[in-house]
């Protein structure tokens, strides 16, 4: 999990000695893509677990009894919006427009925070409705999958805010626009994963 945060660090951990790159991609970008590739398998494993167990509710509530599709649709939309603002931040960074970069980073973080706030609300509501973490196989695999995603979003928010702080204090070593772009990549990935999760968990009836 923490590794995603570490990408912030890798973002400028390039080895300066190697000015050329055999593939044309920068080391950081190539590394980030690889990392996202490994993340695909992580979520793949979790999603498979959920798909296997989603019908096994024991005496607990079933998915359709607790899911609040309108609400989750709205929160998914919010997360998608944040991808848009992230794009704005990256493009501002490429234009070396510090003010806009900062602004859109914060807005993205706020939208992400809204999403996570919604998730915390959703979890609390589920808990009150009788679906705790260990109630059934369905609930455990649901909480693990969406919880992992939530943690990824939270890590992303911390990265965004930290990046904002570093930009302000002029502490980003290496290329600014590339650092913003890297965090953008991560953020988009997390959003895409959510689209898949949302479709598989909430929309396709089990």
């Amino acid at each position, binding site marked *: 999990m923490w590794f995603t945060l570490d990408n912030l660090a890798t973002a400028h951990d390039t080895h300066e000695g190697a000015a050329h790159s055999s593939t044309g991609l920068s080391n950081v970008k190539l590394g980030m893509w690889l990392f996202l590739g490994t993340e695909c398998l992580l979520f793949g494993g979790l999603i498979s677990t959920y798909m296997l167990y989603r*019908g096994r509710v024991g005496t607990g509530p079933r998915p359709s009894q607790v899911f*609040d599709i309108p*609400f989750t649709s709205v929160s998914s939309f*919010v997360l998608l919006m944040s991808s848009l603002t992230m794009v704005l931040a990256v493009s501002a960074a490429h234009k070396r427009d510090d003010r806009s970069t900062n602004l*859109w980073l914060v807005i993205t973080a706020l939208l992400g925070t*809204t999403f996570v706030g919604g998730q915390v609300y959703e979890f609390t509501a589920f808990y009150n409705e009788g679906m705790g973490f260990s109630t059934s196989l369905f609930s455990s695999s649901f909480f693990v999958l969406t919880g992992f995603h939530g943690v990824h979003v939270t890590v992303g928010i*911390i990265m965004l*805010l930290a990046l904002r702080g570093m930009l302000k204090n002029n502490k980003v070593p290496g290329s600014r626009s590339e650092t913003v772009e890297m965090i953008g990549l991560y953020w988009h990935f997390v959003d895409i994963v959510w689209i898949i999760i949302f479709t598989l968990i909430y929309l396709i009836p089990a």
Partner: protein
Amino acid sequence: MFTPGSKYLIAITGLSAVSFALYMLLVHPSALGAVALIGLVAATSLITGVALFTRDGHTPEGQTSAATVDTPTPSMWPLIAAAGLSLVLVGTVTTPIVFILGIVAILAALVEWTVQAWSESASGDRSYNEGIRERILNPVEYPILAAVGIAVIIFSFSRVMLAISKDAGAIIFIVAAAVISLVGLLISVRPQLKKSIVSAIAVVAAIGLVGAGIASMGFGMREDLVVAAEEDHYSHQECGAEKSDHFDKGVSETISATSGADATIELLDGKLTAQVQGIEGLQDSITVRRSNPSNIIFRNKDAGEFRLKAYLGKKQIADGVSEDLITCTQLISEGAEQWLTLTINKPSVSGEPYTLSIPGLEGQSIVVVVP
């Protein structure tokens, strides 16, 4: 190697670590004490490390003290330490949360204050001193501040959401997101906007959110959630033919993986049949091993909603009083299936067999044999 100051701090760190260990081992480890003590260990070890590495209080021979200009900078940490102390006092008589907040504030002040004091004596160059301070503390401050900020926002927001009704929740949610985006848009298209105005908006919004969160906490959760929590809907099943308000709240669904099931019970044309893993053909009885969780699947192929009810004998609850052991699936509609795990601890006796049946459908049952 060790300066007098660092020796003293090493001793304090060691003592706090020992007390933490003793506390965890001997006293019943509660979150409160453990957090306080582990926080103390963390803070003192950090300060000790700084003292050791900066060689504070030790002037190497042949070098003059670096600091020549001594101008104390204004600091907020004394104030925070004092506030923390009062929180601790309040906390001891009220709730542990306040106590912990106080402890955290005191420890934070302790660390920040010490490091600041040290860094200021490092040289006469103030920006250089600030650089040293940042190098030590920025890695700690950045993530903690970000995490605390996020946590406060998320927590307040989720409390608000819990307090209002479901529909209003979704609306509030989208309104909040829209407002955030619009404000962002507004600021970005108006570059001449004053920084103070932007800050003011942010502060007002933050205070408003936290205020609303606290208010919602006081208000509590919305009614249906409170009711749901109190009634604990899902802990008792209602196995009749009728729909239960809570147990059968949703629509039915299918099971994603059926490979592990021992038997599949099917309702087709008003007839109940069993298909048993490994045995060809339809059965009217299944053999379930004693004390062994056996997974069966109930599949409804008839029009209408039915549930499968398992009667698993009687349980002695007092002398002469016994109650039926019953478990069941929910009401599922045509084409749906549901999983049921049976664990039967006592062998079936002839004359009073265990059965699987459909409430509201007479004359159809599957005998469960437990050897």
